[in-house]
């Protein structure tokens, strides 16, 4: 087999006949030309393009065609397969814009084997640095690169390192923040599991620049595999003399240890994290002083996110200028997102900054997972907000997302469709922050609970018109007066849903209706007797035993027993269940 042709119907998922007809026609035409032994035709499950009709990929010439029709088969065979020429009008333009810097080795190397990292240019950045870069030169490259922190706040990495470097001290520390507490986010876990050495190398470079000889990984205990792989990676690095004294025969020394977090969201905040490493309760403290001046055990400390650190070796190897060519405006490089929710392809994606949200959701994620339209996306987890579908053409950057009332955050991206209620979403995130609030400062402890009460009232049908003003007022107080980022940003999900979906709040409060049919107290299910054929499927599937009757006398729904789970609505094939 010299050539392979991959085909996929990217429109009609589940309609096998269409693919079968296309496949058969294609094969017949190959046979006509006696090519069936030279060209293998393969139906694939996913070709990396969506909603673009038949997509055809010809290997090894690497032609990717979309919206291909039956009548295009002959010229594809003649011109492209036999002639090796690209047919311009068939070329597919909507393809994934993924670009891998952080995830360069994830899924490529065996993370348990240091040699595989080395062979993929691993430890070449530290090698380059120790062979003649001064710390200033490294800072210069980082500054040129424009790399900013990926843990949420987006602080320029070079500046943080320079501050720490400039504070005189007998000891300094480097900390890798692997706490990753946002619900739905797992970018950092994947990097730690899939490419732990890249983070180690990033930490070594930080240590070299600021003059630290010791670093800590702070990883949440819920990540046992990440911990195991980092542990293993550290021990292999010691064996090779890449950690410890006299690294690579120079007088650079760097030691690494792991500290486990117990899974409190607030311990991802840098000052609380430092307290936690010191064995104290994970409480944040006011800043300044910043960790760069007074960090771990009161010593100057650089604390960076996993993804930030994984970028560092590439910045050094490829150069700051190369890195700064990727991205947009003040946001350089790439960003990893954990794309989840009501999207066809949930998973990890890495795109250059400046890629639009629409490209992420549709060209990579494949669009909505259901028949329902995408309504909004949520970024930044409990500190972020929702962005309605109308704004999906926004290019991703720290500033653009903030302007929309959300944040880049660490990279959670949750897709929501018409079946998601915005009041319910706001309530979910706020409850998370209330549960995770450490209780140290009053605005966060009391304000969060008060806001949650108001949201609960709205979703139970007892909300009042003035509650909306109250929500805004408490939000402002929390933003201004909370001690740390948790309380300061906790109102964001509420404010952003209010900003774009105030009508949904009003429907809950004034009409006592939940338009998405999520809030159990504001809608009900019932059986439309005219449509019901007494099949009994709903009764069989009801987990609460709320559907009474039998096949002879018909069925009724007992509202008292009904839990609003929606199972009957899903299973009924006749549309005989009313919801509203």
């Amino acid at each position, binding site marked *: 087999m010299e050539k*392979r042709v991959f085909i996929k119907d990217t429109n009609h998922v589940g309609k096998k006949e269409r693919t079968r007809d296309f496949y058969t026609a294609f094969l017949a035409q190959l046979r006509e030309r006696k090519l069936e032994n030279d060209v293998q035709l393969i139906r694939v*499950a996913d070709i990396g393009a969506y909603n673009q009709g038949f997509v055809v990929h010809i290997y090894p010439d690497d032609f990717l065609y979309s919206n291909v029709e039956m009548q295009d088969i002959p010229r594809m065979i003649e011109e492209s397969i036999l002639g090796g020429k690209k047919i311009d009008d068939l070329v597919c333009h909507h393809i994934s814009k993924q670009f891998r810097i952080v995830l360069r080795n994830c899924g490529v190397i065996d993370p348990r084997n240091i040699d595989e990292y080395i062979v993929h240019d691993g430890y070449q950045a530290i090698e380059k640095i120790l062979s003649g870069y001064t710390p200033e030169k490294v800072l210069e490259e980082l500054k040129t690169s424009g790399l900013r922190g990926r843990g949420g706040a987006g602080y320029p990495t070079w500046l943080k390192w320079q501050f720490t470097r400039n504070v005189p001290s007998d000891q300094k520390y480097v900390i890798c923040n692997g706490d990753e507490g946002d619900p739905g986010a797992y970018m950092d876990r994947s990097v730690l599991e899939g490419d732990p050495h890249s983070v180690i190398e990033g930490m070594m470079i930080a240590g070299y620049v600021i003059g630290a000889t010791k670093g800590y990984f702070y990883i949440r205990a819920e990540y046992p595999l990440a911990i195991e792989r980092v542990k293993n990676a550290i021990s292999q690095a010691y064996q090779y003399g890449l950690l410890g004294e006299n690294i690579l025969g120079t007088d650079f020394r760097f030691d690494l240890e792991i500290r486990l977090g117990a899974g409190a969201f607030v311990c991802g905040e840098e000052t609380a994290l430092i307290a936690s490493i010191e064995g104290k309760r994970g409480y944040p403290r006011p800043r300044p002083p910043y960790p760069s001046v007074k960090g771990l055990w009161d010593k100057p400390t650089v604390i960076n996110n996993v993804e930030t650190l994984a970028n560092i070796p590439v910045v050094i190897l490829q150069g700051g200028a190369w890195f700064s060519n990727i991205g947009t405006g003040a946001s350089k490089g790439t960003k990893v997102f954990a794309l989840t929710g009501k999207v066809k392809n949930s998973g990890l994606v890495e795109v250059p900054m400046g890629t639009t949200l629409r490209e992420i959701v549709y060209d990579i994620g494949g669009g909505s997972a259901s028949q329902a339209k995408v309504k909004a996306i949520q970024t930044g987890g409990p500190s972020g907000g929702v962005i309605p579908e109308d704004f999906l053409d926004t290019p991703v950057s720290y500033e653009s997302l903030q302007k929309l009332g959300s944040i880049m955050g660490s990279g959670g991206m949750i897709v929501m469709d018409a079946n998601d209620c915005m009041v319910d979403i706001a309530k979910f995130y706020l409850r998370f922050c209330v549960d995770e609030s450490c209780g140290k400062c009053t605005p966060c402890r009391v304000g969060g609970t008060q806001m949650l009460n108001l949201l609960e009232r709205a979703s139970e049908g007892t909300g009042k018109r003035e509650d909306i003003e109250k929500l805004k007022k408490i939000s402002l107080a929390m933003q201004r007066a909370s001690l740390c980022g948790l309380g300061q940003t906790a109102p964001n999900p509420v404010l952003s849903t209010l900003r774009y979906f105030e009508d949904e709040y009003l429907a809950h409060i004034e009409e006592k209706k939940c338009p998405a049919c999520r809030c159990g107290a504001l809608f009900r299910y019932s059986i439309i007797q005219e449509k019901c054929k007494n099949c009994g499927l709903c009764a069989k599937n009801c987990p609460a035993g709320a559907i009474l009757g039998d096949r002879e006398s018909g069925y009724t729904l007992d509202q008292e027993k009904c839990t609003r789970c929606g199972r009957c609505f899903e299973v009924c094939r006749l549309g005989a269940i009313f919801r509203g």
Partner: protein
Amino acid sequence: MKKLSVDDLSAMRKELKKKKGSWIRVGCSTCGIAAGAKEVFDTLKEEIQKRDLKSLEVKQCGCIGMCYAEPLVEVMIEGMPKVFYGKVDKDVALKIVEKHVCGKMLLNDRIYDAKRSR
């Protein structure tokens, strides 16, 4: 193991880069393992041993990102396109060895993202 110097490390990298040959990789991060990657990995290893395919290496790797299609198996046989098989179970794993590795034919309906995988 002796501690490496700068020169040792570059020499070592150079030497390691010379290694070529066919391989199979199984995504064994939390997402893959949860979907059954370990069984797939064991099956592949066993089958390769049974058929005495010594030059073919079966390896573990991290998460490639296509979590919706786990367990993922990437196959690189020299002279053939490099592809990902998704939602692989024991049966598919056996077919990969029989048809793809030995028969040099790609499997229908199991390949994910042939485009991105090269």
